[in-house]
């Protein structure tokens, strides 16, 4: 808060005096610092941007960009009018929604839990262990999931031993979403924790010392110091995540989907891949990507605005 008001104060004062040029001169170093990054953005992000136009063409690699026929919105209409579109949209959003509700808070909670551990060796060990699954490929995880959850697997043997009927976890539409969300939480929570731990490490320990002197208990310290200190990070990550709301992990969903759960497991990313096998993969997938980006940018801007309205700094 303090830095914000300071920033605004400075800004207002300078605007009033109208010393823009002098200010630019004063901040010359900041502009010089921007240059390498800016060049990177121009060369590697903006120069290839014309590729978006591929979405409006029927791109053929040999004919090249200019030789490929222009088809206008054909790729989009094909996508929107396909009989699968409604189902895909619902499936994609549902999985994203569950991931947002359950997957997003998980690393925050784990980071806060880790933060409360006082034994350093234990904390470090746990931190390192939970971070491992991020590096195990989905192929391996899908295979392990099959071993655990198939009709003869450990879980079902346990269920049978309890006298219940076997649950077809892998081949039923009802169990698909819990399974997917569970996998994601298991795999990515530890890795996601890192960034919050960094934020927690940035808290000035003097604040806690002062709180202890004031007689604040652990919960009060957590509520009045810890949480507010990482709120900015949480909001930043939440807004950034909104931009990719329609991306579900392709590898995971592709591996976990099958004939018997396809009614809930087919999402945009998997659909584009299947379609890409036989049709102009580049044009079609660019078109779908563009659609996802448009939704993403709208969500980013609106959530950013919301955050600002709520008095947070937002991402820009």
């Amino acid at each position, binding site marked *: 808060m*303090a830095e914000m008001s300071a920033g605004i104060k400075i800004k207002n004062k300078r605007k009033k005096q109208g010393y823009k040029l002098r200010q630019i001169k004063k901040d010359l170093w900041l502009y010089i610092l921007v240059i390498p990054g*800016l060049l990177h953005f121009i060369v590697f992000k903006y120069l290839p941007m014309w590729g978006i136009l591929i979405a409006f063409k029927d791109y053929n690699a040999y004919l090249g960009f200019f030789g490929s026929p222009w088809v206008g919105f054909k790729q989009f209409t094909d996508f929107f009018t396909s009989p699968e579109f409604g189902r895909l949209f619902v499936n994609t959003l549902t999985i994203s929604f569950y991931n947002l509700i359950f997957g997003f808070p998980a690393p925050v909670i784990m980071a806060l839990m880790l933060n409360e551990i006082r034994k350093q060796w234990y904390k470090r060990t746990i931190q390192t262990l939970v971070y491992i699954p991020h590096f195990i490929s989905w192929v391996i995880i899908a295979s392990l999931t099959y071993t655990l959850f198939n009709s003869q697997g450990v879980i079902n043997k346990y269920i049978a031993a309890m006298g219940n009927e076997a649950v077809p976890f892998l081949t039923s539409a009802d169990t698909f979403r819990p399974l997917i969300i569970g996998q994601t939480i298991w795999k990515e929570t530890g890795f996601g924790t890192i960034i919050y731990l960094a934020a927690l*490490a940035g808290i000035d320990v003097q604040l806690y010392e002062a709180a202890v002197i004031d007689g604040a208990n652990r919960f009060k310290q957590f509520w009045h110091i810890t949480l507010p200190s990482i709120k900015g990070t949480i909001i930043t990550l939440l807004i*950034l995540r909104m931009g990719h709301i329609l991306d579900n992990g392709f590898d995971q969903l592709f591996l976990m989907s099958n004939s018997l759960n396809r009614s809930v497991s087919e999402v945009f990313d998997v659909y584009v891949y299947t379609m890409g096998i036989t049709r102009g993969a580049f044009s079609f997938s660019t078109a779908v990507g563009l659609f996802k980006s448009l939704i993403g940018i709208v969500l980013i801007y609106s959530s950013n605005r919301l955050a600002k309205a709520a008095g947070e700094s937002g*991402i820009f």
Partner: protein
Amino acid sequence: MKKSWQSKLFDMFNTVVLGVFASTTVLPFLYVLACSFAPEKEILSKPFFIIPSEVHLRSYKYIFSSPTLPRAFLVSLFITISGALTAMFFTLTMAYPLSKKYLVGRNVLLGLVTFTLVFGGGMIPGFLVIKSLGFINKYWALILPGALSTWNLLVVKNFFQELPQEMEDSARVDGCSALGTFLRIVLPLSMPVIATFTLFYAVGYWNDYRSALLYTTNNKMWPLQLVLRQIILMAAGNIDGATFDEAYTQPPLESVKNAVIVFGTVPILAVYPFLQKHFVKGIMIGAIKG
């Protein structure tokens, strides 16, 4: 300091829950590790085990029998280190000015940056840019395109924004240039952030196989993940028999597949504990000030 019983109960609960979760996350990896040493028979017949009945080193011997994997390992190591350093240079230098709200033109810059968070040109134009830069079959192509992630940039920028402004202001008043403030005040205060994003970039470079797939045709430049992926996919079975003499091209053994996974993940896993000390130290702003 005395602890209330609620506090003690919470500590116990906290310790146990984290411990249980952590053990579920480590078990699959231990299984993979055990498989890499186990005889093939055991891998096929047991659904899960952590201690192999016999320890064989033949998978690892196989890995080192050809120059491919050790060489790919060196390539990955080189790309990861130089990539992470380059990326941190780009990210920190750009994030700092963008964190200054008074900077003229900041909003334009941030708009440009945010746009690329969701919009990108895609594979073919990216390839043509790399090609016109003359980067095909150069390590540049594996390092530069990924050297500035929009996502990372925005998060680092926000971290900078949350640093106490007063110290910077007083440094500026004392006659320190913006660059001096950045190098002498801001960076030392940002060690957790620097450690985090060095790790993120390192992980990104280590796991990246797509750049090599697209931008190199020289198999001496293939990083570990590309070769590893191929071995795992080959073990996944070849449905329509793309090879002619089938009996001759056996899919790799399960133990080899697992050894390759161990070989591909352990080095990057080892980075984290090394960087961890920067996460646990709470910063002492007063100490730096004084």
